[in-house]
Each structure stands twice: as structure tokens, then as C-alpha cells.
């Protein structure tokens, strides 16, 4: 990394942090669920060895940054979850994923982490489009831990 770029990043960092800090004090209490007061939601937490299952109601992640990507040998792949086709959906979520939600990893286009941030973001958005085209949604990590073993794709414990 060149010194100039490093300096620039630090500047950005400062501004970003300042913005974040202001944000924190203004919006300290945001919510886990956004725009879903119109339905009752219950999610059950599974942790430890049993790691996650249950909860069938979830919303699409609010941004691509919060979506779950699995690291594979072919680079990160978006976890694309399919809501239960038998359920009627409320536009904008939350979605009922039904009793046995299905999920898949989106493989194309490949995400090259050594490419520029913009390229990576573009590839991620393309994976998301592909997921939407197949009728799926991206979900946040919280929702993920809560449906995990029903999808048959598990996070490897990191040890």
C-alpha cells in the first residue's frame, strides 16, 4: 500500500468514524427487524453444537453487505434462500420460509477478492440478481444462524 493511499484511507476512516459516532448517538436504538411491525415475529435461537434451525420467518437482508457469503475454493458465494412457494408473501417481507426452507450457493459470476472494491461489489450484486431471478432472497447472518441446519448448509465451526 502506498503512503498516499494509506493517508487517504485514514482520512476516510476518520470521517467515517465521526459520521458513525454521530449516527450512534442519534440512532442508538435501531431495530433488528425493519418495517415489520405489521406481523408478529418469533425467532428461536440455537447455539453451540446444535447451531441453528427453526424460525421460518425472516426478511431479506437490508443490504448486500449484511448478506451471507460462504467462502469456497472458488471465492465467496452468496447464500440464496428460497421462501416456501406455498406461503403467501407480504410484499417487502418478512418471508415465511416454511418448514423446510431450501438454500443454494450462487456460483456465478466468480468473485475475485483481489479485484477492486467496485468490481467485487458488482460481482456480488450480480450474484444477488441471479438469486432473485431464481426466486430466492439473501438473508442476514442472524436469520442465517436461526435457520441454518434446515437449509442443509452449515457453517464450519472455526476450530
Amino acid at each position, binding site marked *: 500500500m502506498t503512503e498516499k493511499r494509506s493517508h487517504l484511507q485514514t482520512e476516510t476512516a476518520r470521517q467515517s468514524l465521526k459520521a458513525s459516532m454521530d449516527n450512534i448517538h442519534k440512532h442508538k*436504538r435501531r431495530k*433488528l427487524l425493519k418495517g415489520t411491525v405489521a406481523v408478529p415475529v418469533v425467532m428461536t435461537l440455537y447455539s453451540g453444537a446444535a447451531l441453528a434451525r427453526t424460525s421460518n420467518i425472516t426478511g431479506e437482508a437490508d443490504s448486500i453487505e449484511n448478506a451471507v457469503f460462504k467462502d469456497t475454493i472458488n471465492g465467496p458465494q452468496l447464500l440464496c434462500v428460497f421462501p416456501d412457494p406455498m406461503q403467501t408473501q407480504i410484499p417487502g417481507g418478512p418471508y415465511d420460509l416454511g418448514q423446510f426452507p431450501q438454500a443454494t450457493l450462487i456460483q456465478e459470476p466468480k468473485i475475485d*477478492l483481489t479485484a477492486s472494491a467496485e468490481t467485487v461489489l458488482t460481482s456480488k450484486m450480480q450474484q444477488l440478481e441471479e438469486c432473485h431471478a431464481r426466486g430466492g432472497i439473501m438473508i442476514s447472518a*442472524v436469520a442465517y444462524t436461526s435457520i441454518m441446519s434446515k437449509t442443509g448448509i452449515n457453517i464450519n465451526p472455526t476450530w
Partner: protein
Amino acid sequence: MVVNQIPFEEFHMLLHRQGLRVAIGPFNVCIHTSYKPLIEQLYLLYSHYRITQDEIAEFHVRIVTERSLRNPFKRNIRFLLDGQSPFESFPQEQALAVLEWGINLAIAVRVNHLLLLHSAVVEKNGHVILFPAWPGSGKTTLCTVLSYQGFRLFSDEFGLMDTQQQLFLPIPRLMPLKNESIAVIRNYLPDIVMGRPIPNTQKGTVAHVRPPEKSILLSKHTCKARWIIFPKWIADTPVKIEAISDSEAFMMLASNAFNYEALGATGFCAVADLIRSCDCFKLVYSDFDSVMEVLHQLTNET
């Protein structure tokens, strides 16, 4: 007495005969092995640990060599916990990785007198920051950098919390870097001591970083938590830190724990207390300099 205060021959004898007992955070681990390449690696990487031959050890582990079932000319190694083998055998080059992995497993499945969060933990200005595990967080890499740049290492893996006193206990262990992060850290921190890279493990190539001596020396100094940060490494993105809601932080923290459910109401109340006493953030980053900047500002602000 610390490992590097005894000669290699004595260290070798301890591991080979009665078992070497070392204090790793609040636990004593008794290690037996006669496998020379592992002994050499441990002499280097465990050099700052205190030897506790006369104390009770909570964990008794062994690395033994055996003939491979499929190839009788090849030797494998096996990890034993109290004489029991929790996993299959591995190629002998992986001995260190298997030993470290085995000790983590033993801690994760046996310890219930503390809340065990799955989190990297470092201390600054008398308070700890938790970096809970999170897919793609790169917590070990980040933790390695922080612990050699002015933060005190508690752990890259375990947030050990005494739920009654709401205190975190340091447990500085070797930090296993994976794949690309090995070269990244070599470049960023050229002076640190790292074990030989071990290729073809279940997690790809792994190399173990020796924890800073000072962190081990101070491993009896417990602290309260002040910040909980869910990190995520995304290539080439500018650093961004963002507050998250308490309910979200609660759910993410509790689901990133080894024994949250085993502790029942105690775990629930401990996590609630923790969320109430901490500021909770999401952090997106790509380079260490700017993360460091952000964290210094955060920890000095209040």
C-alpha cells in the same frame, strides 16, 4: 519458571516422561508427546508459558504416533484426551495443528463454569473489546495485528466470562492464521514469531503465531467488556463502523457461543448484562491501518 528458562533437553524429557504442564490462561494443560518435530515447534511457540508441574491440570492431552491403516510405511499422529481419541488420525506434519485444535475442543466441550463466547478478545485502557466470530470475519488475523500493535491479547477464539463478576479472563493461545492471511501478516508484522506453515489441513494451510510475551505475563489480569464489534473483512472497502441495535447484538452474541444454552438462565442474564454495559458495532474493513485508527479513536473517546 517459564518454558524458555529450561534447556531443550529438559523440555523434551518433560513432554516425553511425566508430561509438561503449562498454564494457558486460567487452565493448566498437561501435554505428553514423544514426537520430536512437535517438541521442537512447541519449544519455540510455547516459550513464554509458565510451567506448572506441581499443580492440578484440567486437561490431559497426548499426541501419539501410529502406523497408517492404509499405508503401513507411513506414520500418522493421533490426539488423545484422557486416553480417549475424539477424532481420527492425521498425517504427522499436522501434529501442532491437531494438538492446538484438540485443546480448543477440550475447552469448548468441558468448561461450563464460565460463559464461553466464540469471540476474539483484546484489551485497551483497562477494558476489553469482543470481536465475535462471524462468517468471513477474519477475527484471528485482526486479532494478531491488534495484539502486536498496542492491544493486550486475551484470545483469538474464546471469550471466557466469569458471569458472577462480569469479568473476562485472558486465555492467550497460539493464533492459527489461515491461507492468504499468513503472507499478509508476514508482510505487515515481519518480526513476530510464527510456526512453519502446515499445508493441507482441514482449513487449508495454517501457520501458528506465538502470542506476545506481555499478554501471557498478564494473563491473570481480568477486565470488564466495554465494546462488542462484529468485524467483517471485505477487500478494498473503506473502513466503516456502525452501531447496531441491542436486540440484534444480543442474538448474534448468544448464537456465537459454545455453551450459552448449557448455562441456561445464567447465560441469558450474562449476555443481557453484557449488551447493556457495552457499545455494539458492526465493522467493515479492508486494511489494518485504518482499523487501528478507528479502534484507537473509539477506545480513547470515552
